[in-house]
Each structure stands twice: as structure tokens, then as C-alpha cells.
């Protein structure tokens, strides 16, 4: 038995990097410390896809990696409107090759941001963002606001490592030196810990941001008695908490991005943060879901100029979410082949988008069986990044972290698989050109 320290968790955007595990016979047998329940569940493993498979007469039949990769390349090379979707539970190195593949075949490449923080990305492009690292928040933020986000369930170590519960250099007392405010439509485990909890009516976030912003800018008199179900008194209290803090941070989640007004909520949230700068220091940060959802956006931006939903069908990078995002493409029934990697759109897309996946050939690259494999015609199992393969990922605060290889595996990595598909596609195209 060996103890491995400083293991990096490949689950959520918090990317905890202080995990200790026990390894026995090339398997993680125990998580000693560091990981939350959700991370622990992933590190300890689930049932895997045993072999590459190709669907023959409606049934998935085992085959070799070579066969599956060749077949996948053939499908992609002849596709007229291929979609390459996922890329968030894998490393940047695989993402880079995936973008090259999309360019090669004139496809659309998109990651899971389009159904989580895509609106945040649009808002940041619109008005920029005052940001900082999680280290700065831990050491300096004496007011933590979670808005439409429930880290106690979704990012379970977030408060302990980086925000309200963590002990910082300038805030050695931990939560004794800090204040917590929560805005949510329902009472959550996070809201129960808060000094101020504003239980907002669904879809009223834009209005509440505007009200807080008005108070911060000195226009308290124009705020009505109640906004989105929150009494004016509480709105003024929240604004005063911001004014009186030495450094405030607003973390926002899908409660804001997936509700009415979508990206406009985030524009208003960012501008509310800026209004806070009239009084004190502060920043705002999206609570990114997958451990490398941010990484894909980084790689895609430096490779193509755009963060997600990039369409290469014109021969150059074209970006217009609403037209080129995966849900729109599938909802319109537009794509004719889908390559899905490191994600599960069958579970997380609206039903009508999922139904289109049933109509077209689907290639999936993933370590595990999931509902998308139910639709797949080619299944290519891969090594689990952060456990069986290494690479770079970006934490929610844009800090790159190297995830480690903890155990050996016979599974190919995502990077190798996509690289091999790209080589095959190039070979097919070269042959066609002859």
C-alpha cells in the first residue's frame, strides 16, 4: 500500500489539490483526506466501459481501439455539419487537439459552458469582470456573497478552502472574521449559515441586482418597498454590508445564469460589483462546475479567438451562441454527426435536443457508461484525467493546475484518442485529394 499526497481532484471547478489517497494494486482504495463526498465518490471509482464498441444491427459490439477510431474518423470526415461537444471533464491538452479536429472537418466545437456559465462568458465579453484568485479571497474577503449558488451541495469544499470558513492571512479567525450573505429562491444548507439570507422570487435576480446597485450608487430613495420579494430594508442592509466590508466577493451560480434574463443578470451583477468599488474593494466570480470547463474556454479563446460554440463551417472561426451553441444546433436538428467527449448531453440537454442525438450517428469518448452511451454508435473508453492521466486544467479563478496521474491504466487518454482520430481524418482527406 502506498500513500499518495497532493492528489488533484478531477471533479468540480474548485480543483482541490491537497488530497491524500491510499493506492493498492494500482487502485485507489481509500481517500484519506482532502476530498468532499462528491470528489471522494469519483476518486474511488465507478463501473467502467470495458472495451471500445461499435453498434452493429442496433447492438453495441466490442472491438479494438483501432477499429473504433477508424470508424469514428470515417464518420467525421464525411460529415456535413458535425458537432464536437463536451471537453470539460478532460484536460487542456485534449481540448487543443479537439479544436484542431473541428477546424479540420469544418465542424462546430462547443463545451458544457453553453449550458452552465455560457451566459457569464457573454456578460464578461460585454462588460469585463473585476476578478481575483481564490487565494486572495481566502486571505482578504471579509464579506462573502453566494448568489444563486449552493456550494454546500455543489462545491462542497469551496467555503472551507477558499471563502467563508477558511482562515486567511488577514482574517485568522476564519468565519469569526467574515460575514456570509446568500441570495437564493429556496433555503439551502448554505443559506442556513448566512448572516443575511434574501429569499428571492424566481427570475427576479436582475431587479434585485439593480436595487442593490442603486443603493450603492446613492439612489436609495428610488428603490421600491419590495423588490423580487425582498423588503427594501434588507436590500439596504446587504448594500451596507458591501460598503462596510474591506473586500467583498460575489460568487454566482446557475441560479442566475439559467434563470430569466440569463447573461443580462450577469452584466448587472458585474456592474453592481463595480458600484461597490465606489466604497471598497471587491470582485465577482462564476462558480464553474466541471474541473476544466474553464480550461476549454481558455484554450478555445487562444486557439480561435472565441471561448465556446465556435463554428468552422465557413473555413474560419465563427461565433454566435444562440446559433452555434449545441442546444440550438441539436434543437434545430441541424447536425449530422456528434462527437461527445467527457460529458453527458443526454442527461443535461433539453429533451428535444436529446432526441436529435437519437437520429444521428454519435461517437462518445468517456470513461463511464452514461445516458449518452445509450445513443452512441461508437463508444471509445478513455483514461480518467487526474487519476489515470495527467494534464493541465483551469480552476474557476483562472489559475492553471496540473492534474496528476495516480495509477496506471491500459485505457488510452482523451488526448491520444482525439489525436489518433485527427490523424485518421487527415489521412482520409489526403487520400480523397489524390
Amino acid at each position: 500500500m502506498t500513500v499518495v499526497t497532493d492528489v488533484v481532484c478531477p471533479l468540480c471547478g474548485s480543483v482541490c489539490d491537497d488530497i491524500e489517497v491510499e493506492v493498492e494494486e494500482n487502485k485507489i482504495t481509500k481517500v484519506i483526506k482532502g476530498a468532499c463526498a462528491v470528489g471522494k465518490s469519483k476518486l474511488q471509482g465507478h463501473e467502467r466501459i470495458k472495451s471500445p464498441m461499435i453498434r452493429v444491427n442496433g447492438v453495441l459490439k466490442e472491438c479494438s481501439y483501432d477499429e473504433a477510431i477508424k470508424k469514428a474518423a470515417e464518420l467525421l470526415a464525411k460529415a456535413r455539419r458535425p458537432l464536437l461537444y463536451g471537453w470539460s471533464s478532460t484536460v487542456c491538452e485534449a481540448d487543443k487537439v479537439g479544436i484542431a479536429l473541428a477546424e479540420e472537418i469544418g465542424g462546430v466545437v462547443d463545451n458544457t459552458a453553453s449550458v452552465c456559465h455560457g451566459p457569464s462568458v457573454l456578460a464578461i465579453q460585454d462588460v469585463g469582470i473585476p476578478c481575483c484568485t481564490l487565494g486572495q479571497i481566502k486571505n482578504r474577503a471579509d464579506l462573502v456573497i453566494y448568489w444563486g449558488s449552493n456550494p454546500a451541495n455543489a462545491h462542497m469544499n469551496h467555503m472551507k478552502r477558499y471563502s467563508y470558513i477558511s482562515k486567511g492571512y488577514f482574517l485568522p479567525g476564519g468565519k469569526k472574521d467574515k460575514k456570509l450573505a446568500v441570495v437564493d429562491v429556496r433555503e439551502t444548507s448554505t443559506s442556513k449559515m448566512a448572516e443575511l439570507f434574501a429569499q428571492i422570487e424566481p427570475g427576479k435576480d436582475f431587479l434585485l441586482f439593480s436595487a442593490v446597485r442603486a443603493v450603492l450608487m446613492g439612489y436609495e430613495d428610488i428603490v421600491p418597498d419590495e423588490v423580487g420579494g425582498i423588503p427594501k430594508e434588507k436590500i439596504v442592509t446587504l448594500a451596507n454590508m458591501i460598503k462596510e466590508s474591506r473586500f467583498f466577493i460575489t460568487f454566482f451560480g446557475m441560479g442566475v445564469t439559467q434563470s430569466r434574463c440569463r447573461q443580462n443578470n450577469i452584466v448587472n451583477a458585474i456592474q453592481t460589483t463595480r458600484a461597490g468599488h465606489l466604497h471598497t474593494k471587491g470582485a465577482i466570480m462564476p462558480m464553474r462546475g466541471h474541473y476544466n470547463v474553464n480550461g476549454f474556454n481558455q484554450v478555445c479563446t487562444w486557439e480561435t479567438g472565441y471561448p465556446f460554440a465556435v463554428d468552422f463551417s465557413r473555413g474560419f472561426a465563427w461565433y454566435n451562441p444562440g446559433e452555434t451553441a449545441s442546444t440550438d444546433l441539436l434543437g434545430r436538428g441541424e447536425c449530422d454527426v456528434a462527437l461527445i467527449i467527457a460529458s453527458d448531453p443526454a442527461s443535461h440537454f433539453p429533451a428535444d435536443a436529446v432526441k436529435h442525438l437519437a437520429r444521428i450517428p454519435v461517437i462518445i469518448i468517456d470513461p463511464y457508461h452514461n445516458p449518452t452511451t445509450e445513443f452512441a454508435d461508437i463508444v471509445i473508453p478513455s483514461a480518467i484525467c487526474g487519476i489515470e492521466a495527467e494534464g493541465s486544467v483551469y480552476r474557476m479563478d483562472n489559475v492553471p493546475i496540473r492534474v496528476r496521474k495516480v495509477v496506471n491504466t491500459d485505457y488510452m487518454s482523451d488526448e491520444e484518442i482525439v489525436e489518433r482520430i485527427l490523424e485518421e481524418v487527415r489521412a482520409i482527406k489526403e487520400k480523397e485529394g489524390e
Partner: protein
Amino acid sequence: MEGIKVILISGRTIAQGENLENKMSEEYFNAVAICELNEGDMARLGVSADENVKVKTDYGEVVVKAKKAKGYPEGIAFIPMGPWANALVSANTRGAGMPAYKGLDAVITKTDEAVLYITDLFRKYKEEAWKK
């Protein structure tokens, strides 16, 4: 029986997260094919915990198990993110690329119909897809 009108939201839960990479399992089914409601709404519907309810929006309908939960105002229902919640969501993103997953108008009724297991739910999708 008359249904109740609710605003439907979805989101992550611990049990959903623990089975994120274990979706074909019974644990995931039990964690996600549910609808949380407050006590008053459960009484208005005439259902007790673990009885089945049908949730219907303009875009689809799905049967899930009712669960009593604290902390919800009356008229708000929660289904953890996953295939059952998404059966009720439109693929029209209104130009944003992002579907409206939260804040949907829905009607909930008590039902004797069974909750579809994950493979059955997707089999139904495949059949519907080819009909279209």
C-alpha cells in the same frame, strides 16, 4: 384530480453529484428522478412522500417521486438536474445558447403512472425521435 401550479427549478444536490459518473445506477435514479415540494404543496396535491407525481410544462411531461422538503416557499418545486428535469425544458435558447432550465411554469398532479427508469426514458426518446 386538479393539479397545482408551480414554478419549477432544478440544480445540483449532493446525492446527484456523488452519482454524476454513475448515472446508469439505481442510486442515481433514486437521487434524481424526484420532485421536492414543501409540506403545504404536498397536502394540496394529496400526496405523501415517495408517491408519484406528474410534472407538466409547455414543453413536456415526466413522472417522478414526490419528496417533502423544508425551505421551499409555497408554489416552488425542485427537480435535481438530470434527464427527468430536462424532459420539461425547451431547446429554444432565445438567442443565448442557454436553455431556460430554471423558473419554468409547471403543473403537478398526482398519478398512478410509474417513474420511467433511465433506460426506459431514453428508449421513449428514441421512439419519439424516429416518429418525428
